[in-house]
Protein backbone atom coordinates (compact mmCIF):
# COMPACT_ATOMS: atom_id res chain seq x y z
CA UNK A 1 0.00 0.00 0.00
CA UNK A 2 1.16 3.50 -0.66
CA UNK A 3 -0.16 6.95 0.11
CA UNK A 4 -0.71 10.03 -2.02
CA UNK A 5 -0.23 13.63 -0.99
CA UNK A 6 -3.93 14.09 -0.29
CA UNK A 7 -3.81 11.20 2.17
CA UNK A 8 -0.72 12.62 3.85
CA UNK A 9 -2.50 15.95 4.19
CA UNK A 10 -5.55 14.26 5.68
CA UNK A 11 -3.43 12.25 8.13
CA UNK A 12 -1.51 15.38 9.14
CA UNK A 13 -4.82 17.07 9.82
CA UNK A 14 -5.88 14.09 11.94
CA UNK A 15 -2.59 14.38 13.84
CA UNK A 16 -3.03 18.15 14.16
CA UNK A 17 0.28 19.00 12.50
CA UNK A 18 0.27 21.81 9.97
CA UNK A 19 2.14 20.81 6.81
CA UNK A 20 2.79 22.96 3.79
CA UNK A 21 2.21 21.60 0.30
CA UNK A 22 5.99 21.13 -0.10
CA UNK A 23 6.26 19.26 3.17
CA UNK A 24 3.31 17.06 2.29
CA UNK A 25 4.99 16.24 -1.01
CA UNK A 26 8.30 15.35 0.65
CA UNK A 27 6.62 13.38 3.42
CA UNK A 28 4.63 11.40 0.88
CA UNK A 29 7.91 10.01 -0.48
CA UNK A 30 9.29 9.29 2.98
CA UNK A 31 6.11 7.64 4.17
CA UNK A 32 5.95 5.50 1.06
CA UNK A 33 9.51 4.40 1.66
CA UNK A 34 8.54 3.26 5.17
CA UNK A 35 5.29 1.68 3.99
CA UNK A 36 7.21 -0.15 1.28
CA UNK A 37 9.60 -1.44 3.91
CA UNK A 38 6.87 -2.76 6.21
CA UNK A 39 5.10 -4.42 3.26
CA UNK A 40 7.21 -7.55 3.81
CA UNK A 41 5.07 -8.38 6.87
CA UNK A 42 2.49 -9.66 4.42
CA UNK A 43 4.79 -12.64 3.83
CA UNK A 44 4.21 -13.85 7.38
CA UNK A 45 1.50 -16.42 8.00
CA UNK A 46 -0.29 -15.06 11.04
CA UNK A 47 -3.34 -17.30 10.85
CA UNK A 48 -4.40 -18.33 14.34
CA UNK A 49 -1.76 -16.19 16.01
CA UNK A 50 -2.89 -14.04 18.93
CA UNK A 51 -1.68 -10.45 18.86
CA UNK A 52 0.75 -9.62 21.64
CA UNK A 53 -0.91 -7.77 24.51
CA UNK A 54 2.05 -7.59 26.85
CA UNK A 55 5.76 -8.17 26.52
CA UNK A 56 5.90 -9.89 29.89
CA UNK A 57 3.61 -12.52 31.34
CA UNK A 58 2.05 -10.70 34.21
CA UNK A 59 -1.33 -9.47 35.37
CA UNK A 60 -2.37 -5.89 35.91
CA UNK A 61 -2.13 -4.62 39.46
CA UNK A 62 -5.11 -2.68 40.83
CA UNK A 63 -5.01 0.15 43.32
CA UNK A 64 -7.23 0.72 46.33
CA UNK A 65 -9.90 3.38 45.97
CA UNK A 66 -8.59 6.29 48.01
CA UNK A 67 -7.89 9.95 47.39
CA UNK A 68 -4.10 10.15 47.38
CA UNK A 69 -3.45 12.91 44.86
CA UNK A 70 -4.67 16.29 43.61
CA UNK A 71 -5.49 19.26 45.78
CA UNK A 72 -2.73 21.39 44.26
CA UNK A 73 -4.03 23.28 41.24
CA UNK A 74 -0.92 25.47 41.22
CA UNK A 75 1.24 22.44 40.60
CA UNK A 76 -1.01 21.37 37.72
CA UNK A 77 -0.94 24.75 35.98
CA UNK A 78 2.69 25.56 36.85
CA UNK A 79 3.93 25.10 33.28
CA UNK A 80 0.84 26.41 31.49
CA UNK A 81 1.53 28.82 28.61
CA UNK A 82 -1.64 30.72 29.52
CA UNK A 83 -3.74 30.34 32.65
CA UNK A 84 -5.96 32.41 34.89
CA UNK A 85 -7.27 31.59 38.34
CA UNK A 86 -5.89 28.07 37.90
CA UNK A 87 -7.87 27.50 34.70
CA UNK A 88 -6.04 26.64 31.50
CA UNK A 89 -6.95 29.10 28.75
CA UNK A 90 -7.46 28.34 25.08
CA UNK A 91 -8.96 30.23 22.14
CA UNK A 92 -12.72 30.07 22.41
CA UNK A 93 -14.12 26.69 21.45
CA UNK A 94 -17.47 26.77 19.69
CA UNK A 95 -19.74 23.76 20.06
Amino acid at each position, binding site marked *: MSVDTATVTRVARLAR*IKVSADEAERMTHELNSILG*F*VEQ*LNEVDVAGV*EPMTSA*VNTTMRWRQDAVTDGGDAGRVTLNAPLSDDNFFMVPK*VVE
Partner: protein
Amino acid sequence: MSLVTDLTALTLAEARAGLKAGDFTAVELTEAYVAAVEAARGLNAYIVETPEKARAMAKASDERIARGEARPLEGIPLGIKDLFATEGVHTQACSHVLDGFKPPYESTVTANLWADGAVMLGKLNMDEFAMGSSNETSYYGPVTNPWRRQGSNASLVPGGSSGGSAAAVAARICLGATATDTGGSIRQPAAFTGTVGIKPTYGRCSRWGIVAFASSLDQAGPIARDVRDAAILLKSMASVDPKDTTSVDLPVPDYEAAVGRSVKGLTIGIPREYRLDGMPAEVDALWQTGIEILKDAGATIVDISLPHTKYALPAYYIVAPAEASSNLARYDGVRYGLREKGDDIVDLYEKSRAAGFGDEVKRRILIGTYVLSAGYYDAYYLRAQKVRTLIKRDFETAYASGVDAVLTPATPSAAFAIGEKAGADPVEMYLNDVFTVTVNMAGLPGLAVPAGLSAEGLPLGLQLIGRPFDEETLFTLGGAIEQAAGRFSADKWW
Protein backbone atom coordinates in the same frame (compact mmCIF):
# COMPACT_ATOMS: atom_id res chain seq x y z
CA MET B 1 45.45 19.33 38.44
CA SER B 2 46.58 15.79 37.89
CA LEU B 3 44.06 14.72 40.54
CA VAL B 4 41.18 15.78 38.28
CA THR B 5 42.38 13.69 35.38
CA ASP B 6 43.03 10.77 37.64
CA LEU B 7 39.65 10.86 39.27
CA THR B 8 37.69 10.85 36.03
CA ALA B 9 39.74 7.90 34.84
CA LEU B 10 38.34 5.71 37.58
CA THR B 11 35.45 3.36 36.98
CA LEU B 12 32.36 3.66 39.14
CA ALA B 13 33.42 0.66 41.22
CA GLU B 14 36.90 2.14 41.69
CA ALA B 15 35.51 5.55 42.62
CA ARG B 16 33.15 3.90 45.10
CA ALA B 17 36.14 2.14 46.71
CA GLY B 18 38.16 5.38 46.77
CA LEU B 19 35.33 7.29 48.47
CA LYS B 20 34.90 4.53 50.99
CA ALA B 21 38.61 4.43 51.73
CA GLY B 22 38.71 8.22 52.06
CA ASP B 23 41.24 8.63 49.23
CA PHE B 24 39.18 11.61 48.02
CA THR B 25 35.87 13.21 48.88
CA ALA B 26 32.63 13.22 46.95
CA VAL B 27 33.02 16.96 46.50
CA GLU B 28 36.48 16.45 44.97
CA LEU B 29 35.16 13.77 42.68
CA THR B 30 32.24 15.96 41.64
CA GLU B 31 34.49 18.99 41.06
CA ALA B 32 36.67 16.86 38.79
CA TYR B 33 33.59 15.92 36.78
CA VAL B 34 32.15 19.44 36.71
CA ALA B 35 35.46 20.64 35.25
CA ALA B 36 35.55 17.76 32.75
CA VAL B 37 31.97 18.51 31.67
CA GLU B 38 32.87 22.15 31.03
CA ALA B 39 35.96 21.15 29.09
CA ALA B 40 33.97 18.78 26.88
CA ARG B 41 31.21 21.18 25.84
CA GLY B 42 32.32 20.82 22.24
CA LEU B 43 30.88 17.30 22.22
CA ASN B 44 27.40 18.71 22.96
CA ALA B 45 26.68 15.74 25.22
CA TYR B 46 25.10 17.81 27.98
CA ILE B 47 22.28 20.17 27.12
CA VAL B 48 21.92 21.34 30.72
CA GLU B 49 24.63 21.34 33.38
CA THR B 50 23.61 21.41 37.02
CA PRO B 51 26.94 22.01 38.83
CA GLU B 52 25.40 23.72 41.87
CA LYS B 53 22.98 20.86 42.36
CA ALA B 54 25.88 18.42 41.93
CA ARG B 55 28.00 20.21 44.53
CA ALA B 56 25.16 20.29 47.05
CA MET B 57 24.46 16.60 46.54
CA ALA B 58 28.18 15.76 46.81
CA LYS B 59 28.46 17.72 50.03
CA ALA B 60 25.54 15.82 51.49
CA SER B 61 27.21 12.58 50.38
CA ASP B 62 30.42 13.49 52.18
CA GLU B 63 28.44 14.08 55.35
CA ARG B 64 26.82 10.69 55.00
CA ILE B 65 30.15 9.00 54.33
CA ALA B 66 31.58 10.72 57.41
CA ARG B 67 28.70 9.37 59.47
CA GLY B 68 29.29 5.90 58.09
CA GLU B 69 25.94 5.94 56.34
CA ALA B 70 27.07 5.65 52.75
CA ARG B 71 24.48 4.27 50.35
CA PRO B 72 25.26 2.11 47.26
CA LEU B 73 25.94 5.06 44.93
CA GLU B 74 27.03 7.60 47.52
CA GLY B 75 28.76 10.54 45.86
CA ILE B 76 28.80 9.01 42.36
CA PRO B 77 28.29 11.71 39.65
CA LEU B 78 25.89 10.68 36.90
CA GLY B 79 24.43 12.17 33.75
CA ILE B 80 20.69 11.91 33.10
CA LYS B 81 19.12 11.48 29.69
CA ASP B 82 16.72 14.35 28.97
CA LEU B 83 13.87 11.82 28.69
CA PHE B 84 13.77 11.41 32.49
CA ALA B 85 11.70 13.93 34.44
CA THR B 86 13.93 15.69 36.95
CA GLU B 87 12.10 17.90 39.41
CA GLY B 88 12.56 21.60 38.74
CA VAL B 89 15.18 20.88 36.09
CA HIS B 90 14.77 21.24 32.31
CA THR B 91 13.05 18.11 30.93
CA GLN B 92 12.22 18.31 27.25
CA ALA B 93 13.08 14.98 25.62
CA CYS B 94 15.28 17.26 23.49
CA SER B 95 12.19 18.57 21.76
CA HIS B 96 11.16 22.15 21.15
CA VAL B 97 7.56 21.18 21.80
CA LEU B 98 8.34 20.92 25.54
CA ASP B 99 9.87 24.38 25.50
CA GLY B 100 10.57 25.58 29.04
CA PHE B 101 9.08 22.51 30.74
CA LYS B 102 10.30 21.96 34.29
CA PRO B 103 8.41 19.08 35.84
CA PRO B 104 7.13 19.32 39.41
CA TYR B 105 8.03 15.62 39.80
CA GLU B 106 10.96 13.23 39.61
CA SER B 107 10.98 10.01 37.58
CA THR B 108 11.04 6.81 39.62
CA VAL B 109 14.36 5.69 38.11
CA THR B 110 16.19 8.92 38.92
CA ALA B 111 14.52 9.10 42.33
CA ASN B 112 15.91 5.59 42.98
CA LEU B 113 19.39 6.80 42.00
CA TRP B 114 19.25 9.85 44.27
CA ALA B 115 17.90 7.71 47.09
CA ASP B 116 21.02 5.57 46.69
CA GLY B 117 23.26 8.65 47.00
CA ALA B 118 24.11 9.46 43.38
CA VAL B 119 24.99 13.01 42.28
CA MET B 120 23.38 14.70 39.26
CA LEU B 121 25.69 16.47 36.82
CA GLY B 122 23.08 17.54 34.28
CA LYS B 123 20.78 16.48 31.47
CA LEU B 124 22.11 14.61 28.46
CA ASN B 125 21.42 15.13 24.80
CA MET B 126 19.37 12.58 22.86
CA ASP B 127 17.34 12.15 19.70
CA GLU B 128 14.07 14.07 19.94
CA PHE B 129 11.60 11.91 21.89
CA ALA B 130 14.17 9.09 21.58
CA MET B 131 13.37 8.77 17.88
CA GLY B 132 16.63 8.27 16.07
CA SER B 133 19.76 6.17 15.81
CA SER B 134 22.41 8.90 15.54
CA ASN B 135 21.41 11.68 17.95
CA GLU B 136 20.97 13.93 14.92
CA THR B 137 17.27 14.58 15.51
CA SER B 138 17.80 16.48 18.77
CA TYR B 139 16.46 20.02 18.91
CA TYR B 140 19.78 20.87 20.59
CA GLY B 141 21.91 19.64 17.72
CA PRO B 142 23.95 16.48 17.21
CA VAL B 143 26.34 14.95 19.73
CA THR B 144 29.89 14.25 18.67
CA ASN B 145 31.27 10.79 19.35
CA PRO B 146 34.52 10.96 21.41
CA TRP B 147 35.85 8.29 19.01
CA ARG B 148 37.33 9.25 15.64
CA ARG B 149 38.47 7.15 12.76
CA GLN B 150 42.21 6.67 12.70
CA GLY B 151 43.84 9.60 10.96
CA SER B 152 40.58 11.48 10.54
CA ASN B 153 39.10 14.51 12.28
CA ALA B 154 35.64 13.86 10.92
CA SER B 155 32.94 14.09 13.59
CA LEU B 156 31.14 10.80 14.05
CA VAL B 157 27.72 10.16 15.55
CA PRO B 158 27.59 8.45 18.96
CA GLY B 159 24.52 6.49 17.89
CA GLY B 160 21.10 7.11 19.32
CA SER B 161 18.80 7.78 20.76
CA SER B 162 20.91 7.78 23.96
CA GLY B 163 23.78 9.46 22.12
CA GLY B 164 24.48 12.00 24.85
CA SER B 165 24.55 9.28 27.49
CA ALA B 166 26.96 7.08 25.52
CA ALA B 167 29.23 9.96 24.50
CA ALA B 168 29.35 11.32 28.06
CA VAL B 169 30.35 7.94 29.48
CA ALA B 170 32.95 7.38 26.73
CA ALA B 171 34.35 10.90 27.20
CA ARG B 172 34.58 10.32 30.97
CA ILE B 173 32.36 13.31 31.75
CA CYS B 174 30.15 11.23 34.04
CA LEU B 175 30.68 7.95 35.88
CA GLY B 176 27.60 6.47 34.31
CA ALA B 177 24.42 7.63 32.65
CA THR B 178 20.78 6.79 32.49
CA ALA B 179 19.46 5.84 29.08
CA THR B 180 16.38 4.33 27.53
CA ASP B 181 15.90 1.76 24.81
CA THR B 182 12.82 1.36 22.60
CA GLY B 183 14.44 -0.33 19.60
CA GLY B 184 18.15 -0.25 20.43
CA SER B 185 18.66 3.21 21.94
CA ILE B 186 20.93 1.96 24.74
CA ARG B 187 22.77 -0.84 22.99
CA GLN B 188 23.51 0.77 19.62
CA PRO B 189 25.11 3.96 21.08
CA ALA B 190 26.97 1.83 23.63
CA ALA B 191 28.39 -0.20 20.76
CA PHE B 192 29.31 2.98 18.84
CA THR B 193 31.22 4.43 21.81
CA GLY B 194 32.97 1.41 23.33
CA THR B 195 30.76 1.50 26.44
CA VAL B 196 28.54 -1.08 28.10
CA GLY B 197 24.78 -0.70 27.96
CA ILE B 198 21.98 -2.93 29.11
CA LYS B 199 18.31 -2.80 28.25
CA PRO B 200 16.72 -4.85 31.01
CA THR B 201 13.62 -6.98 30.64
CA TYR B 202 10.47 -4.96 29.96
CA GLY B 203 8.99 -4.21 33.37
CA ARG B 204 12.28 -4.32 35.29
CA CYS B 205 12.55 -0.52 35.60
CA SER B 206 9.60 1.74 36.19
CA ARG B 207 8.57 3.88 33.24
CA TRP B 208 6.91 6.46 35.53
CA GLY B 209 8.28 9.91 34.86
CA ILE B 210 10.06 8.91 31.66
CA VAL B 211 8.67 10.77 28.66
CA ALA B 212 6.90 8.02 26.71
CA PHE B 213 7.83 7.10 23.15
CA ALA B 214 6.34 3.63 22.61
CA SER B 215 4.87 2.34 25.86
CA SER B 216 5.04 -1.37 25.10
CA LEU B 217 8.71 -1.16 24.10
CA ASP B 218 10.30 1.60 26.23
CA GLN B 219 12.64 0.47 28.96
CA ALA B 220 15.26 2.32 30.99
CA GLY B 221 18.78 1.06 31.62
CA PRO B 222 22.30 2.31 32.26
CA ILE B 223 25.25 3.05 30.01
CA ALA B 224 28.52 2.54 31.88
CA ARG B 225 32.30 2.22 31.54
CA ASP B 226 32.32 -1.50 32.08
CA VAL B 227 30.12 -4.48 32.84
CA ARG B 228 30.49 -4.20 36.62
CA ASP B 229 29.50 -0.53 36.59
CA ALA B 230 26.44 -1.33 34.49
CA ALA B 231 25.47 -4.02 37.01
CA ILE B 232 25.88 -1.61 39.94
CA LEU B 233 23.73 1.03 38.23
CA LEU B 234 20.96 -1.30 37.13
CA LYS B 235 20.61 -2.59 40.70
CA SER B 236 19.76 0.94 41.83
CA MET B 237 17.58 1.85 38.85
CA ALA B 238 15.37 -1.23 38.90
CA SER B 239 12.30 -1.49 41.11
CA VAL B 240 8.68 -2.46 41.12
CA ASP B 241 6.63 0.71 41.14
CA PRO B 242 2.98 1.02 42.20
CA LYS B 243 2.73 3.94 39.77
CA ASP B 244 3.66 1.75 36.77
CA THR B 245 1.48 -1.35 36.59
CA THR B 246 3.67 -2.79 33.85
CA SER B 247 6.63 -2.84 36.23
CA VAL B 248 7.12 -6.33 37.58
CA ASP B 249 7.05 -7.35 41.21
CA LEU B 250 10.19 -9.48 41.39
CA PRO B 251 13.11 -8.94 43.78
CA VAL B 252 16.06 -7.07 42.23
CA PRO B 253 19.07 -9.38 42.38
CA ASP B 254 22.61 -8.31 43.27
CA TYR B 255 23.70 -7.98 39.64
CA GLU B 256 27.26 -7.10 40.58
CA ALA B 257 27.68 -10.50 42.17
CA ALA B 258 27.01 -12.06 38.77
CA VAL B 259 30.06 -10.34 37.24
CA GLY B 260 33.01 -12.70 37.32
CA ARG B 261 30.95 -15.85 37.78
CA SER B 262 32.02 -18.79 35.67
CA VAL B 263 30.32 -19.28 32.32
CA LYS B 264 31.02 -23.00 32.44
CA GLY B 265 27.90 -24.98 31.71
CA LEU B 266 26.08 -22.12 30.03
CA THR B 267 24.70 -22.72 26.55
CA ILE B 268 24.94 -19.88 24.05
CA GLY B 269 22.74 -19.78 20.98
CA ILE B 270 24.08 -18.33 17.72
CA PRO B 271 21.11 -17.36 15.53
CA ARG B 272 21.78 -17.94 11.87
CA GLU B 273 19.30 -15.25 10.81
CA TYR B 274 21.61 -12.55 12.16
CA ARG B 275 24.18 -13.26 9.44
CA LEU B 276 23.03 -10.57 7.06
CA ASP B 277 23.92 -10.22 3.39
CA GLY B 278 26.37 -7.42 2.95
CA MET B 279 27.36 -7.33 6.60
CA PRO B 280 30.95 -6.01 6.94
CA ALA B 281 33.46 -8.83 7.36
CA GLU B 282 34.85 -7.22 10.49
CA VAL B 283 31.45 -7.44 12.16
CA ASP B 284 31.28 -11.11 11.31
CA ALA B 285 34.84 -11.55 12.56
CA LEU B 286 33.98 -9.82 15.82
CA TRP B 287 31.05 -12.17 16.27
CA GLN B 288 33.44 -15.11 15.78
CA THR B 289 35.78 -13.61 18.36
CA GLY B 290 32.91 -13.46 20.85
CA ILE B 291 32.01 -17.08 20.13
CA GLU B 292 35.62 -18.15 20.67
CA ILE B 293 35.90 -16.20 23.92
CA LEU B 294 32.82 -17.80 25.41
CA LYS B 295 33.81 -21.24 24.12
CA ASP B 296 37.26 -20.87 25.68
CA ALA B 297 35.67 -19.80 28.94
CA GLY B 298 33.73 -23.07 29.03
CA ALA B 299 30.35 -22.20 27.49
CA THR B 300 28.63 -24.50 25.03
CA ILE B 301 27.92 -22.92 21.65
CA VAL B 302 24.90 -24.05 19.63
CA ASP B 303 23.44 -22.84 16.37
CA ILE B 304 19.84 -21.78 16.67
CA SER B 305 17.16 -20.38 14.44
CA LEU B 306 15.03 -17.34 15.16
CA PRO B 307 13.02 -17.50 11.94
CA HIS B 308 11.02 -14.28 12.31
CA THR B 309 14.04 -12.07 12.92
CA LYS B 310 13.78 -10.23 9.63
CA TYR B 311 10.24 -9.15 10.39
CA ALA B 312 11.10 -7.49 13.68
CA LEU B 313 12.19 -4.19 12.19
CA PRO B 314 9.20 -3.71 9.87
CA ALA B 315 6.82 -4.73 12.67
CA TYR B 316 8.60 -2.28 14.94
CA TYR B 317 8.04 0.53 12.45
CA ILE B 318 4.32 -0.05 12.76
CA VAL B 319 3.98 -0.66 16.50
CA ALA B 320 6.35 2.06 17.74
CA PRO B 321 5.01 4.92 15.56
CA ALA B 322 1.42 3.88 16.30
CA GLU B 323 1.96 4.09 20.04
CA ALA B 324 4.03 7.25 19.64
CA SER B 325 1.34 8.99 17.58
CA SER B 326 -1.00 8.56 20.53
CA ASN B 327 1.57 9.19 23.30
CA LEU B 328 2.62 12.47 21.69
CA ALA B 329 -0.94 13.77 21.30
CA ARG B 330 -0.64 15.42 24.72
CA TYR B 331 1.84 17.95 23.34
CA ASP B 332 -0.81 20.38 22.24
CA GLY B 333 0.26 23.73 23.67
CA VAL B 334 -2.50 23.85 26.27
CA ARG B 335 -1.06 22.73 29.61
CA TYR B 336 2.72 23.07 29.14
CA GLY B 337 5.38 23.52 26.52
CA LEU B 338 5.43 25.41 23.25
CA ARG B 339 2.33 27.30 22.19
CA GLU B 340 2.00 29.11 18.91
CA LYS B 341 -0.73 31.66 18.41
CA GLY B 342 -3.70 30.30 16.50
CA ASP B 343 -6.93 31.71 15.12
CA ASP B 344 -8.83 28.98 16.89
CA ILE B 345 -8.05 25.89 18.91
CA VAL B 346 -7.37 23.67 15.90
CA ASP B 347 -5.07 26.28 14.41
CA LEU B 348 -3.27 26.56 17.75
CA TYR B 349 -2.77 22.78 17.84
CA GLU B 350 -1.58 22.54 14.26
CA LYS B 351 0.85 25.43 14.50
CA SER B 352 2.23 24.52 17.92
CA ARG B 353 2.82 20.93 16.90
CA ALA B 354 4.25 21.89 13.52
CA ALA B 355 6.70 24.27 15.18
CA GLY B 356 7.45 22.01 18.13
CA PHE B 357 8.19 18.66 16.50
CA GLY B 358 11.18 17.95 14.29
CA ASP B 359 10.96 16.11 10.95
CA GLU B 360 11.68 12.61 12.23
CA VAL B 361 9.07 12.92 14.99
CA LYS B 362 6.52 14.24 12.49
CA ARG B 363 7.26 11.33 10.15
CA ARG B 364 6.65 8.81 12.89
CA ILE B 365 3.51 10.52 14.12
CA LEU B 366 2.14 10.50 10.58
CA ILE B 367 3.02 6.86 9.99
CA GLY B 368 1.51 5.93 13.34
CA THR B 369 -1.64 7.93 12.67
CA TYR B 370 -1.97 6.35 9.26
CA VAL B 371 -1.58 2.73 10.35
CA LEU B 372 -4.19 3.18 13.09
CA SER B 373 -6.67 5.03 10.90
CA ALA B 374 -9.96 3.56 9.80
CA GLY B 375 -9.60 0.58 7.53
CA TYR B 376 -5.88 0.02 8.11
CA TYR B 377 -5.78 -1.18 11.72
CA ASP B 378 -6.03 -4.89 10.93
CA ALA B 379 -3.65 -4.79 7.99
CA TYR B 380 -0.94 -2.97 9.89
CA TYR B 381 -1.18 -2.72 13.66
CA LEU B 382 -2.96 -5.99 14.39
CA ARG B 383 -0.74 -7.91 11.99
CA ALA B 384 2.40 -6.37 13.49
CA GLN B 385 1.30 -7.38 17.00
CA LYS B 386 0.75 -10.92 15.76
CA VAL B 387 4.23 -10.93 14.24
CA ARG B 388 5.48 -9.80 17.63
CA THR B 389 3.94 -12.89 19.17
CA LEU B 390 5.85 -15.00 16.63
CA ILE B 391 9.12 -13.18 17.37
CA LYS B 392 8.69 -13.78 21.08
CA ARG B 393 7.81 -17.41 20.39
CA ASP B 394 11.07 -17.85 18.47
CA PHE B 395 13.04 -16.91 21.57
CA GLU B 396 10.85 -19.02 23.85
CA THR B 397 11.52 -22.03 21.63
CA ALA B 398 15.27 -21.39 21.81
CA TYR B 399 15.25 -20.97 25.58
CA ALA B 400 13.06 -24.03 26.01
CA SER B 401 15.66 -26.05 24.11
CA GLY B 402 18.24 -25.21 26.77
CA VAL B 403 19.82 -22.03 25.44
CA ASP B 404 20.73 -19.68 28.30
CA ALA B 405 21.56 -16.63 26.19
CA VAL B 406 21.90 -15.59 22.58
CA LEU B 407 25.02 -13.91 21.15
CA THR B 408 24.79 -11.55 18.18
CA PRO B 409 26.57 -8.48 16.86
CA ALA B 410 25.18 -5.30 18.43
CA THR B 411 25.16 -3.24 15.23
CA PRO B 412 25.71 -3.91 11.55
CA SER B 413 28.56 -1.38 11.40
CA ALA B 414 30.75 0.94 13.44
CA ALA B 415 29.87 4.59 14.03
CA PHE B 416 29.30 6.70 10.92
CA ALA B 417 29.87 10.38 10.25
CA ILE B 418 27.43 13.10 11.21
CA GLY B 419 25.28 13.79 8.15
CA GLU B 420 26.37 10.60 6.40
CA LYS B 421 22.93 8.94 6.58
CA ALA B 422 20.84 12.07 6.38
CA GLY B 423 19.75 11.10 2.88
CA ALA B 424 16.23 10.98 1.55
CA ASP B 425 15.41 7.46 2.68
CA PRO B 426 14.59 7.19 6.39
CA VAL B 427 14.71 3.38 6.20
CA GLU B 428 18.49 3.41 5.72
CA MET B 429 18.86 4.92 9.19
CA TYR B 430 16.32 2.51 10.67
CA LEU B 431 18.47 -0.48 9.59
CA ASN B 432 20.95 0.45 12.33
CA ASP B 433 18.62 -1.22 14.81
CA VAL B 434 18.22 -4.46 12.88
CA PHE B 435 20.01 -6.54 15.57
CA THR B 436 18.64 -4.80 18.63
CA VAL B 437 14.97 -4.29 17.83
CA THR B 438 13.94 -7.95 18.14
CA VAL B 439 14.82 -7.78 21.83
CA ASN B 440 12.38 -4.92 22.45
CA MET B 441 9.69 -6.61 20.42
CA ALA B 442 10.02 -9.70 22.65
CA GLY B 443 10.49 -7.71 25.87
CA LEU B 444 13.79 -9.49 26.65
CA PRO B 445 16.95 -8.19 28.32
CA GLY B 446 19.87 -7.29 26.02
CA LEU B 447 23.41 -6.23 26.87
CA ALA B 448 25.88 -4.55 24.53
CA VAL B 449 29.54 -5.00 25.34
CA PRO B 450 32.54 -3.77 23.31
CA ALA B 451 34.65 -6.62 21.97
CA GLY B 452 37.09 -5.09 19.51
CA LEU B 453 37.94 -2.30 17.12
CA SER B 454 37.16 -1.88 13.46
CA ALA B 455 39.87 -1.52 10.86
CA GLU B 456 39.42 2.22 11.23
CA GLY B 457 39.98 2.02 14.98
CA LEU B 458 36.35 2.38 16.01
CA PRO B 459 34.74 0.26 18.72
CA LEU B 460 32.49 -2.63 17.77
CA GLY B 461 30.09 -4.30 20.15
CA LEU B 462 28.44 -7.64 20.72
CA GLN B 463 24.96 -8.17 22.02
CA LEU B 464 23.87 -10.76 24.56
CA ILE B 465 20.17 -11.54 24.79
CA GLY B 466 18.80 -13.30 27.87
CA ARG B 467 15.74 -14.98 29.25
CA PRO B 468 13.14 -12.69 30.80
CA PHE B 469 14.49 -11.27 34.07
CA ASP B 470 17.76 -13.15 33.75
CA GLU B 471 19.98 -10.08 33.51
CA GLU B 472 22.45 -11.84 35.81
CA THR B 473 23.49 -14.31 33.13
CA LEU B 474 24.08 -11.40 30.75
CA PHE B 475 26.36 -9.70 33.27
CA THR B 476 28.26 -12.96 33.77
CA LEU B 477 28.72 -13.48 30.02
CA GLY B 478 29.41 -9.81 29.33
CA GLY B 479 32.04 -9.85 32.07
CA ALA B 480 33.72 -12.84 30.44
CA ILE B 481 33.85 -11.14 27.05
CA GLU B 482 35.13 -7.93 28.61
CA GLN B 483 37.83 -9.79 30.50
CA ALA B 484 39.09 -11.46 27.36
CA ALA B 485 38.62 -8.59 24.91
CA GLY B 486 39.73 -5.82 27.23
CA ARG B 487 38.24 -2.36 27.61
CA PHE B 488 38.29 0.37 24.99
CA SER B 489 38.87 4.05 25.70
CA ALA B 490 38.75 6.98 23.31
CA ASP B 491 41.86 9.15 23.24
CA LYS B 492 41.07 12.57 24.55
CA TRP B 493 41.12 15.19 21.78
CA TRP B 494 38.27 17.46 22.82
